[in-house]
């Protein structure tokens, strides 16, 4: 029997005005029935494009080409668009997407959207379709499935919508399911449920599944086979445990070192230097060569062959035997820095928002913070974790003095924060935000952006400003020549460094970082986490770090506060909370966090 899916030499090009993007190059994958293929890779590596090419959902102008494209022995390339949409898209291949909030049509009921695929194909009668839809909704764990049929998407939570998406895809009983980052937008606890669900369904129905994710741990946990993509190419593929526990390609190896691991003692992360390659002109040699620490002459002359490695997996590199990584863990530089007095204390903070659900509708109150007390000590890194909507950002804004709580008091340097002049406050604490794209004014040059806090403080001397900006750039390890660049000319990681430089230019004692790395790729996250470690070591920075990633907490925090529904549910030294959580919620959070069950030795092998 042939394989369920066999694709060879898939290429996708996107013509742009003036040049052409080679977004997918020479990609070959195959998949057996009932198996899961995980595709991992950093943002922009071409994961989605490969999947969309299979579904013929590429942007209008894109051109896809492959030497083989077979589903269940059927050559997909011979089908015209009409037949493809009737026979393949839906009944054969189902696809679910990352954005559960927008992937359902807001103006139609769940029921209608679930049933229309089958109805329009005339597969089932109206009654049967309805029955089946309700069954599937029940199966994916939607409470009161019959009632949901007449509801609209906006009446469901994100996790529920994703479940509806899955049920909807299953309506046509596809033999292959493509899940493109199905859980990225969801909380870890929900993420685990959804992934479990997908796993179960695959097993029940003997479906093939392609699971696309940038989260190596997710893929490691859930797939049989893994393909690692970089710059539009597959640079390593094979069985999951082989590829991710014993990576052969230098890139995969670097990636593994860049991720904080819950199971290991925290240490410096191995950041990959440089940035992702441009896809405009295909390189002659190895696509990873510019960033590779094993770069050789012949790396850039010819494209390396796919090389077999221990039978189970293969990698594309000039090195005949995979390099061995150094085994020692470099300890964090700031480990063990002394902790001083409380510098910011919040006592009994309540924050109530009044919103209207509908135009002129009744007011609704949201208790975003419920009697929260917390203190930040000089020199420590305090992590604040909790699921989405638990009030972390709200608390951060209050601590920064950007918002007034409904009740409760914030004291900064032993004075009520309201008594501090804005400048005094600014000199003491500075924020760093999650989204490096929105945290820099796109209309200002870096020099202006970084100098701004000083100007606001009244500094007018351009020499002083220039010098301060230069120093700030040095601190965040950005080259001086970027001074006159605009934010749009920087990568995400560089932008985040600029944001940090701006925060540091006034030499504050404390930083409040709201998910500073969650919008970034792991390799960039490693750079930022290392930088924070450096700053702490060099400047004794106090840091409040908001995150939803347990591994990050593990990596960098001294102390951790866990929030749920606006309340603090657990608080304590980081390692203690991670090892022996006392609260059920914290336990769930930890259990749901995807992880590599690996030892230090394994990584080093």
């Amino acid at each position: 029997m042939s394989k369920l899916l066999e694709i060879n030499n898939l290429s996708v090009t996107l013509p742009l005005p003036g040049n052409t993007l080679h977004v997918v190059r020479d990609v070959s994958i195959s998949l057996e029935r009932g198996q899961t293929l995980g595709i991992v890779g950093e943002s922009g590596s071409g994961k989605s494009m490969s999947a969309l090419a299979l579904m013929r959902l590429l942007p209008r102008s894109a051109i896809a080409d492959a030497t083989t494209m077979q589903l269940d022995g059927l050559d997909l390339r011979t089908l015209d668009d009409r037949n493809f949409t009737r026979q393949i898209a839906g009944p054969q291949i189902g696809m679910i997407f990352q954005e559960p909030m927008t992937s359902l049509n807001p103006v139609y009921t769940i029921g209608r959207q679930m049933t229309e695929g089958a109805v329009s194909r005339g597969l089932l009668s109206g009654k049967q379709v309805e029955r089946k839809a309700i069954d599937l909704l029940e199966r994916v764990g939607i409470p009161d499935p019959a009632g949901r049929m007449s509801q609209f998407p906006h009446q469901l939570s994100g996790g529920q919508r994703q479940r509806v998406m899955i049920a909807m895809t299953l309506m046509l009983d596809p033999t292959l399911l493509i899940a493109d980052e199905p859980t990225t937008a969801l909380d870890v606890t929900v993420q685990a449920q959804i992934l479990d669900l997908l796993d179960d369904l695959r097993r029940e129905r003997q479906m093939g599944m392609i699971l696309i994710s940038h989260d190596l741990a997710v893929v490691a946990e859930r797939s049989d086979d893994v393909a690692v993509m970089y710059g539009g190419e597959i640079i390593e593929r094979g069985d999951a445990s082989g590829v991710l526990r014993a990576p052969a390609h230098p890139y995969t190896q670097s990636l593994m070192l860049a991720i904080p691991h819950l199971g290991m003692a925290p240490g410096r992360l191995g950041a990959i230097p440089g940035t992702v390659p441009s896809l405009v002109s295909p390189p002659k040699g190895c696509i990873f060569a510019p960033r590779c620490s094993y770069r050789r002459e012949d790396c850039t002359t010819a494209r390396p062959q796919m090389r077999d490695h221990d039978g189970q997996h293969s990698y594309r590199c000039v090195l005949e035997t995979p390099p061995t990584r150094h085994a020692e863990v470099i300890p964090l530089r700031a480990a063990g820095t002394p902790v001083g007095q409380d510098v910011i204390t919040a006592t009994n903070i309540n924050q109530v928002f009044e919103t209207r659900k509908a135009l002129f509708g009744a007011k609704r109150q949201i208790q975003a913070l419920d009697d929260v007390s917390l203190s930040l000590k000089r020199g420590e890194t305090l992590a604040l974790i909790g699921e989405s909507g638990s009030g972390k950002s709200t608390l951060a804004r209050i601590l920064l003095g950007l918002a007034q709580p409904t009740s409760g008091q914030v004291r900064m340097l032993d004075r009520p924060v309201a008594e501090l002049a804005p400048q005094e406050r600014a000199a003491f604490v500075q924020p760093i935000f999650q989204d490096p794209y929105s945290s820099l004014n796109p209309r200002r040059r870096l020099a202006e952006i970084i100098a701004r806090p000083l100007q606001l403080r009244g500094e007018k001397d351009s020499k002083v400003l220039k010098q301060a900006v230069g120093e700030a750039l040095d601190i965040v390890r950005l080259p001086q020549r970027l001074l006159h660049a605009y934010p749009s000319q920087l990568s995400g990681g560089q932008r985040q460094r600029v944001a940090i430089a701006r925060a540091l230019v006034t030499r504050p004692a404390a930083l409040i970082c709201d998910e500073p790395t969650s919008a970034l790729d792991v390799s960039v996250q490693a750079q930022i986490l290392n930088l924070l470690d450096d700053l702490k070591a060099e400047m004794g920075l106090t840091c409040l770090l908001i995150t939803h990633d347990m591994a990050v907490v593990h990596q960098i925090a001294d102390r951790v506060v866990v929030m749920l529904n606006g309340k603090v549910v657990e608080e304590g030294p980081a390692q203690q909370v991670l090892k022996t959580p006392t609260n059920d919620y914290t336990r769930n959070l930890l259990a749901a966090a995807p992880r590599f069950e690996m030892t230090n030795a394994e990584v080093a092998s």
Partner: protein
Amino acid sequence: MTDTQISTTGVEAEMTLLTPRQIFRKRLLSHTGFLIGAGLIATIALIALFAPLLAPHDPYAQTLSARMLPPIWAEGSNPDYLLGTDQNGRDYLSRLIYGTRVSITIGIGAACIGMLIGVTLGVLAGYFGGIVDHAISFLLTAQLALPGLLLAMALVFIIGPSIWVVIGIVGILHWTYYLVVTRSATQRIRSLDFVAAAVASGATPRQVIWHEILPNLFSQIIVIFTFELGIAILAESSLSFLGVGIQPPTPSWGLMIAEGKQAMFYRPWLVVLPGICLFLLVIGANLMGDGLRDITSPEGRNE
């Protein structure tokens, strides 16, 4: 290996990227619609500027015995008057040329006044929200609910027509578009993190508005400005057509159309020629506006 070091190769690759301004310029110069529009506007602006040099006659000099001569291509024309004469025997071409001055002055003046009002209100409403926003929204509804042309007529009526009055009134009546756009843009920008960063650095609302918000509204304001330019020019011509706009004998295209209207069946050029001038100017403004909008919107051509 020091991990926080950025490889120079990557940085150099980025440095070859263009600044936003360069990208803007490049995209402008490759947008046909914009180029046509800008060309039209530039030509007309030059004509307005050099009107005294270009006009073959004094636009106010009348020869009553040579009234309503047809243009050069029609029978009975006088080669001295290329496009014929109007009902007072004034050279039509010269009047059309001088008419550019009226249209452009009014267009720019009114669009500026509208911009001042609309952007100020829009930014205030968007930035402060709450009661300020409600009050400004009410003002907006009231303004929209007033039939603009009627109000303009009534106002011109009161103050007495002159070019400055027309500029003021057309301007005062055309701020809503600016307001709607800048209000929502301000709301959006206000919620962005760089504003929070500025506030956290101790910036006052004034400083935030001037330094962080306004520069980001600039491109949208320019786009609206070009559209409003066209709208104001049309509004002036409508008012003049209804007889409550520009004062005769000042040559305004709308007025010329109104004057030529009576004779339009026998001397259609009296209506058609100023109509075409008006059309070209306004279409120029609109093409420019469309072009700018395409260029400033991130997805390229997408209104």
